[in-house]
């Protein structure tokens, strides 16, 4: 029989305090996050009326429409393609820069400032200037290189161009995280390795990479989710009549289009749910990878 343990007055006191302290956050999370999440799920089963008046329950209609809609699938592919550019390149380049800046370099803080600068800029501004740089007629790139490439209008390469913008924006952030991770690796490892005759590159792959893996994993995980939910870049860089748009628009972009442009909140909700399910699957895969690849001290 389970003994009902009575709480001492002191424990009771602590419990009251504890609950009171977590109350604002928990209430907030429930009201602001959990309830909306459930609501979105519900909405995905409904057809929204004009101006949000009158939701009619339609069961799986939104989902079957979404699954049959090639636009949605294409947007998932686009989003994944974007992630494929942003995450690996963002991580590798940032790691390289972090390793460089971790050594004895003059002007470390200046370099660090410069590399981090894109991170503090509003994405709208970043998108605007890159769109202008990429402009086929008047942009800097085509005029300096004397080419006539449709950087953001050619469906074959537009997604790469947008990916580049993503990489450019995120390098500084990843780099800062890497630097702090690098600082935690004790110098003795490297000294010992040097004595044993290991070259810089050897050291990098056998010491740095494994010991940095928790940081690397953290960055990869957050960036993957960040990349899969990308919206700002496509929204600002691609004009609505851009021929490459269908091959670049992300799933969140499509969500925005249906929910707010066309007022079809039910369909938008279904799209979000599909994306969320996809992200959950990816997260689980990453968790498994973590167990295999990440080396915790």
């Amino acid at each position, binding site marked *: 029989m389970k003994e009902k343990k009575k709480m001492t007055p002191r424990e009771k006191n602590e419990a009251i*305090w504890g609950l009171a302290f977590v109350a604002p956050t928990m209430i907030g999370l429930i009201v602001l996050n959990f309830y909306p999440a459930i609501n979105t799920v519900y909405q995905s089963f409904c057809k929204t009326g004009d101006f949000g008046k009158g939701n009619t329950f339609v069961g799986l209609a939104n989902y079957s429409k979404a699954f049959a809609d090639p636009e949605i699938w294409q947007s998932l592919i686009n989003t994944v393609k974007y992630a494929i550019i942003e995450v690996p390149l963002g991580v590798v380049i940032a790691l390289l820069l972090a390793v460089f800046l971790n050594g004895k370099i003059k002007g470390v803080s200046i370099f660090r400032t410069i590399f981090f600068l894109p991170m503090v800029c509003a994405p709208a501004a970043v998108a605007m200037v890159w769109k202008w740089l990429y402009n086929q*007629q008047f942009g800097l790139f085509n005029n300096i290189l004397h080419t006539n490439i449709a950087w*953001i*209008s050619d469906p074959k390469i537009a997604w790469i161009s947008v990916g580049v913008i993503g990489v450019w924006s995120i390098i500084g952030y990843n780099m800062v995280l890497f630097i702090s991770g690098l600082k935690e690796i004790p110098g003795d490892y490297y000294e010992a390795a040097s004595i044993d005759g290991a070259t810089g590159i050897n050291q990098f792959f056998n010491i740095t990479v494994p010991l940095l893996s928790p940081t690397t994993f953290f960055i990869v995980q957050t960036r993957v989710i960040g990349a899969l939910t990308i919206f700002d870049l496509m929204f600002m860089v691609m004009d*609505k*009549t851009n021929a490459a748009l269908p091959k670049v628009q992300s799933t969140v972009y499509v969500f925005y289009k249906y929910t707010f442009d066309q*007022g079809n909140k039910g369909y938008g909700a279904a799209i979000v749910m599909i994306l969320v399910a996809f992200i959950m699957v990816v997260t689980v895969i990453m968790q498994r990878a973590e167990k295999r690849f990440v080396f915790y001290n």
Partner: protein
Amino acid sequence: MKMKKVMALALAGVMALSIAACGGGSSASTSSGSGSADAGSADAGSAASGALTINIWDANQQAGIQEICNDWTALGNPEVKVEVIDWDNYWTLLEAGASGGQLADVFWMHSDYAQIYMENDILLDLTDYIAKDGVDMSIYYPDIAAIYTRSDGKIFALPKDHDTIALLYNKALFDQAGVAYPTDEWSYQDMYEAAKAITEGTPDDVYGYALNTSNDQDGWYNYIYSYGGNVVNTEKTDTALDSAESKAAMEQVRLMLTVATPQAIVAESGTDSLFQSGKVAMITQGSWMINSFYTAENSKDYAWAEIPYFDRNGDGACQKDERWTCYNGLGWAAAANTANPDAAASLIEYLCSKDAQIKQAQLGVTMAGIPGISEDFANAFEGMDVSAFTKVEENGTLYARPGTRNSGKWQTPMKQAGYFLDAWQAPENPQAMSDACDKVAKLIRDCIAEEQ
């Protein structure tokens, strides 16, 4: 002991209060020094101060409209603040406001959306005000007034203006290619030949014409109607976009596209930019854009001609029903739940009164919603002859901008991939254009069916 717990809860309470307070506080402080409050906020205090907010989407018209509103204020009325929200976001955000019950007091209404707003009682019913104040509805363009009259006869907006389309050309480029300037007797075929000559007679990146899928009202719609087709019939029950006439028109558009700036470039830079940078010799544009070209750096090179016609009966001359221009009229509407219905209605009546309309035309803001004021408008642009916009009203036929109950559903997609964009990307292929016509026709029919 319990007091500390109370303190924690009080902390939470203070937070909540401060957020509510800063909600109200910010709306009061975001108003400009002239004391007009943002009527869009939930702050009931704005009703007491009585100032009105207006939303429009054309920055070009802001100054002129603000001036006219100030005249109204000077008559002993509340202050007015004119705000601009760009076209791309205007309707998304208006709908957001309507769903949440918060709108500006007075705002522009457009034929594309009038029906859905009227049917859902989002707009203030002006019928009684009109009757009470003796507003004479007969002075307005009847088609435009009709747009804003609901099926049960109630009126929800007053006509603010009307606009027509004309042909804008760059004299310098014509000279460079040695081509004669457009005349009022030009047919679409003449325009094609001139465009071709200019494209061939100028450096590689300069073209005779530019047109994007998004230039509908100011562009390819007019071909369709001149050729005898339509985009949406007047009863709003069907489309003739896949008829022989419409297809012939779009075939002419296709021909133009073969000598026009490639779509990819136009999509990135816009016809206006390309024109102003001297990369395009001709574009068609609406009267609401005149100011932008009038104040441009090279405006002395720019001139306007009447929109071309299609010689349907082959007699070599332009009959009235062969030259068509889209015309649209915006309406001034008020929110049904505005805090100041009387003031809003009064402001609307003022803005649409003959005097204010004349002033609007004189300021070069737009052409009036009342016939007969064209000359004031024409005179507003000293040094630039804009008579092309008014002459077409005598020499041509005006057709109301095609729309259905929820036009947004087909108007955006039809300009994108899978519809007309595909044809624009393949101008050498007549079949692509014909297929696009079929697809868009189906899109429109599906949307109409959904609206029933």
